[in-house]
């Protein structure tokens, strides 16, 4: 019996070693950003993938440090936790930009709508303390590591050796993408308990203000069709009314570029209906930083 147990134990130990090797192989850019945060930042942004439209290299100043800590489909709960994680790395009076997306107030904390196995919450297990993770469990932590090993393997082997069909969304032109994105974004949240997200945003702003950092809420530019497809009524009920609540309560600037005519009707500036391309992002960032300067929020450069 001992020999059998030894053989099986050795076998599983080999499997475990292989998994550990795969876990260490690669870390997502998002987690890497947080893990490699050093020194002090003058300006950071949180938020969803829409925050990727902010490019800090357009600020021509070598001493000025800015970085985007956005994450696709991020929730306001994890914006709050990410901010807490980043707090020690922020300079005095640093600017904290919080880009909001139309679905931001509808999401639940751990994005239970998210696809598995690259589950939404997994990545937070790699850098946030366990108190910051919503409904933390040891089991989920183990699963997060196992899923990471799988994801790393997939990125190395599957993408290299197997032909992968492009995602349906990537084949759509911008007008077709409007339908896809609006439907997807409406489905992402149930919008029945948006008050909790208002509370998370409130807590985030409160802490930023208490620590003498400068908060800025913004909506990044969207392609005009994306805005009109959502519709004014839906946006008022599920987005702008909540922003109004926040603005009444906190001394915070809100910059709305969602329908900015310098960008929104220019197809060449968009990657798809709700994300800017490189050119669009740089163009938008110049506008944004100029506005921040004009408002007296950005004092350097």
């Amino acid at each position: 019996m001992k020999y059998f147990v030894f053989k099986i134990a050795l076998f599983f130990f080999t499997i475990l070693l292989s998994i550990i090797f795969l876990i260490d192989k690669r870390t997502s850019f998002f987690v890497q950003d947080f893990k490699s945060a050093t020194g002090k930042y003058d300006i950071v942004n949180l938020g969803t993938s829409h925050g990727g439209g902010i490019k800090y290299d357009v600020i021509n100043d070598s001493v000025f440090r800015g970085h985007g800590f956005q994450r696709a489909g991020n929730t306001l709960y994890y914006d709050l936790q990410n901010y807490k994680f980043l707090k020690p790395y922020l300079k005095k009076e640093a600017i904290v930009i919080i880009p909001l997306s139309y679905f931001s107030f509808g999401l639940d904390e751990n994005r239970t709508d998210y696809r598995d196995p690259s589950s939404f919450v997994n990545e937070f297990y790699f850098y946030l303390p366990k108190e910051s993770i919503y409904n933390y469990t040891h089991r989920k932590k183990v699963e997060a590591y196992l899923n990471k090993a799988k994801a790393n393997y997939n990125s190395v082997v599957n993408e290299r050796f197997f032909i992968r069909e492009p995602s349906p969304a990537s084949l759509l032109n911008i007008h077709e993408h409007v339908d896809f994105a609006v439907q997807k974004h409406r489905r992402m949240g149930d919008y029945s308990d948006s008050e909790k997200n208002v509370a998370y945003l409130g807590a985030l702003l409160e802490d930023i203000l208490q620590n003498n950092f400068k908060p800025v809420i913004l909506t990044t530019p969207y392609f005009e069709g994306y805005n009109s497809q959502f519709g004014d009524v839906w946006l008022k009920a599920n987005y702008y009314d909540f922003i109004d609540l926040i603005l009444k309560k906190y001394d915070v600037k809100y910059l709305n570029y969602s329908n900015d005519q310098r960008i929104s009707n220019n197809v060449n500036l968009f990657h798809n209906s709700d994300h800017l391309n490189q050119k669009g992002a740089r163009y938008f960032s110049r506008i944004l930083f100029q506005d921040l300067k004009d408002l007296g929020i950005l004092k350097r450069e």
Partner: protein
Amino acid sequence: MIFNSLDFALFLPIVFTLYWLIQNYNLKLQNLLIVVASYIFYGWWDWRFLSLILFSTLVDYSIGIYLNKTSDKTKRKMMLYTSVLVNIGLLGFFKYYNFFVSNFVDSFAFFGAKIKPNTLNIILPVGISFYTFQTLSYTIDIYKNKLAPTKDFISFAAFVSFFPQLVAGPIERATNLLPQFYTKRNFDAKKSMDGFRQILWGLFKKVVIADNCARYVNLIFDNYEAYSGSTLFLGAMLFAFQIYGDFSGYSDIAIGVSRLFGFNLKQNFAFPYFSRDIAEFWRRWHISLSTWFRDYVYIPLGGSRGSRCNKIRNVFIIFIVSGFWHGANWTFIVWGALNALYFLPLLLLNRNRVNTNVVAEHSILPSFTESFKMLITFLLTTLTWVFFRSDSVASAIDYLSNICNASIFSKPLALESYLYIFILLFILIEWRGRREQYGIEKLWLNKPWPLQWAFYYMLAMLIFLYGGEAQEFIYFQF
């Protein structure tokens, strides 16, 4: 608790270690451990339903003892009916109550009478169809004097609730499994190693084949109106692999785990897709259920003896009851009836036992005729699976009629290329092992150990890396 979960990955080594640590002390203690472990295993889903297993165990244990005490035919019959009533009653209430009520209401509605349905929000206890059949066979066998009742309650409770096969079979007969609880089990490294191999192969079938097929099957069956005939055909084929991988994978894991604990369960799947006709298919598919129905329903009805009318009636009864056992839906009844239609010509022409040996028994490859027969049998089976998988008979007919149009020649939905590779690997290994109890039973056993272990390593890594989104075993719902 499901076999392909982290919970089970922790549960199994703990129970295994405790089980063999106490082997020298007391057999009763070992059996008690099995009962406790089995109740934990089952209670992991919903502890409330443990009362049902306990109730079923107590009833059949008591009836078994009473049957042995009396020789009065009427009393014995009454006892048997009580057991049947309790077990089928439990099954009927939890599984079929709403089906009968809604069909009753629909029938009245057909004639213009409106009845307010009184359906209940009933949760189907996992595995109820399996353990009720297992306990029922115990009582029937005692009634028929084929088996002596046990006085050892712990052994009987362990027999009813034995966790490897509790929720999805194989449905074991008391004549095979119960005596194993009376005898001392000594650790047998060879048997355990064999069990380990079978678990590995079962997991590969379930996690790599079935769960990856399930992704596409769900997509195609849930949106069948939107897909071309070729994609629907592909979807039906993938479901054939999914259900086989899923269910036979579960059986392999159950048998393998049992072997780790020193028990021998009977083979439940004998490579059914290599069958040359439907009769052979049914001798190889879900053997424990088919033989249960054969012994307790078909033969008591007269089996294949008697008039032609009786033969036809018996075949339809057994296949329809078998279909209905799978679920309270007309789709399963149609599935059973279709299989009866396939089977009848073979029975009536006395050709139902032509293919009793293993296909291409003495050669590597099948002959052209054998290949053709296997292909036809597979396609006929796949056709019936469409009913099995569909939500309703109407959508199954729609699905099949959508296959039969010009779009059958169009390019089907693209699958991940690795899935084709795995299915091919799976078929090749199963073909090579078709004479054995399971696909890799003797694969590379005569090769040097590093090669063997490299193969096991590859299987384990494939299970880990290519495991599709974890799906419950299909047969849990039955």
